[in-house]
């Protein structure tokens, strides 16, 4: 006699069609209200002559954008943004990779060394700016003191106070700060390369140098991609460091789009024009970032 299951298995509860949206809603509301909506309304402000204070303003179409190319400071800022991007990606990536390769070898005290090299990355940008502003101090700064100490008095100079050196002087702390991240990523990636690859290369008679270029570099491709994508996205956002160290000066020597936007909005009361500057750099940042965002979305699907 067959026993028949008398109770039907409980029907799996699906929670209904709306359940996912209840989970999604709080974050999406905040995201739209404080990021998407402000970003889009900036598009509108960039088409006005608003000064940032008055109750009224006029729609001026694309006037602000038309003015951009003839603004000499914008030219400087774009040039500085490009230099900043190239330098603060190339140096940290190269130094970070070199440190990672060295740390991945037979080294004592690896955790402490790694800790030290990543330390600048967790400090507030403003404090990094303060520390380096203090090191660069023409009279009492450690850098000039060191140069005088080793007899190079002629090289001692107001690093942040003159056009010729200011931008480079601001980029040094940025390199200091940004080297830790590629180092960590490369170190983790290096540990994932199978030893057999190196053994096979050794059997084939490859030198250490050849092994680096034939085995290590190709295996690091995913890490290269992440480092490059994230550094690019990060570079376009540069603001804090320059604002806190030089405020764009001396003159306009260290202006970038972010600081020039800020100066226009909060100092020169040209909120419409300043916003147009922000829109331009944001569009570039989005264009650069989209491949990364797409790859992340694709992987999650």
């Amino acid at each position, binding site marked *: 006699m067959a026993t028949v299951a008398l109770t039907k298995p409980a029907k*799996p509860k699906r*929670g209904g069609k709306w*359940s*996912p*949206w209840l*989970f*999604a809603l*709080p*974050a999406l509301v905040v995201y739209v*209200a404080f*990021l*998407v*909506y*402000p*970003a889009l*309304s*900036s598009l509108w402000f960039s088409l006005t002559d608003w000064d940032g204070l008055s109750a009224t303003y006029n729609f001026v179409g694309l006037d602000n954008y038309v003015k951009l190319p003839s603004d000499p400071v914008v030219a400087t800022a774009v040039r500085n943004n490009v230099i900043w991007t190239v330098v603060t990606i190339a140096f940290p990536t190269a130094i970070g990779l070199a440190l990672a390769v*060295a740390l*991945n*070898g*037979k*080294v004592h*005290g690896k955790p*402490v*060394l*790694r*800790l030290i090299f990543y*330390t600048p*990355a*967790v*400090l*507030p*940008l*403003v*404090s990094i700016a303060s*520390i380096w502003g203090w090191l660069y101090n023409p009279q*009492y700064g*450690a850098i000039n003191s060191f140069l005088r100490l080793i007899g190079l008095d002629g090289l001692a100079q107001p690093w942040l106070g003159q056009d010729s050196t200011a931008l480079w002087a601001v980029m040094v702390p940025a390199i*200091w700060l940004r080297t830790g991240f590629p180092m*960590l*990523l490369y170190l*983790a*990636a290096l540990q994932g390369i199978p030893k057999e690859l190196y053994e096979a290369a050794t059997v084939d008679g490859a030198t250490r140098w050849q092994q680096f270029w034939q085995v290590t570099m190709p295996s690091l491709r995913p*890490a290269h991609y*992440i480092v490059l994508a994230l550094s690019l996205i*990060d570079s376009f*956002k540069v*603001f*804090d460091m320059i*604002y806190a160290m030089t405020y764009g000066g001396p003159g306009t020597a260290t202006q970038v789009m972010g600081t020039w936007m*800020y100066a226009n*909005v909060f100092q020169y009361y040209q909120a419409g024009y300043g*916003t147009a500057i*922000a829109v331009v*750099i*944001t569009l570039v940042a*989005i264009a*650069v970032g989209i491949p990364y*965002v797409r790859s992340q979305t694709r992987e999650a*699907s």
Partner: protein
Amino acid sequence: MTSIAPVRVDAPVVPAGTVPASQPPKGRKGLVVTLLLIVVALFWISPLALLVVTAVRPLSDFIGNGPLSWPDAFTWSNFKDAWGIGNFATTYRNSALLALMKVPLGVLVSAMLGFALAKLRMKFRRTVMFSVFLGLTIPIYITIVPVFIMMRSAGATDSLFGLLGPYLAFGIPFEVLVLQSFFRQIPDEIFEAARVDGAGDWRIFFTIVLPLSTPALVTVAILDAVATWNEFLFALILLNSDANKTIPVGLLNFQGQFANNNTGLAAGILIAVVPILIAYIVLQRWIVGGLTAGATKG
């Protein structure tokens, strides 16, 4: 939000110290590389070391002997001066309060969204995901004018609460990115079993997903706390009175006031960075593990 760049956490975050199984260092070559690295590391950390030395010496000693000399005398008074004039009691409280409000709330709402994206059948899932991840590329300064207007009309300028919304919004893309990729690793069978037992989505979320994801939640919370503690631009434009300033804005003011007092300035900078340094040293395994877990897998 600031210097911490987002990377996926694919696997459960293992404290980084336990991962490498490299051979024990041996031989002369290892020693040479180690020595070389130590020299570079000393150079790397020298700005901070110099800061510490300067902060504990009297100003007269600093001026008399120069910044690179070893102090003749030591003092704590720089810290006392800096603490009072820099208003650090207030800025500390504000930054801590802000992080305490922002981080748990941000992690919770991001985890909820991440769960919906990773495990629930949601319409327009890919569109939502793409739009949220796109937030990673948006610079804060594109939003400051509208956010400023919004907060002014809501009466929320010069208040820590006014920072809450923008901070949450700019933290969400990174947190969702990390958490959803972690949630996807949880096998579906666990959910099916729970559903057969009659558990709804909320119970599954709170009793299964969150407890299983503790490592990812901790990593995200730490990185988020660092970013919140360090955020500068929103705080700069939204906070006016000294009573409401956070550490980065307070430090900037302090820097101006102490321009000629090098030892006091060094002490003030140290006061501002010590909590984050201690947190980093104590929690570094989580930070390192969270930042790099995504890199090892293509």
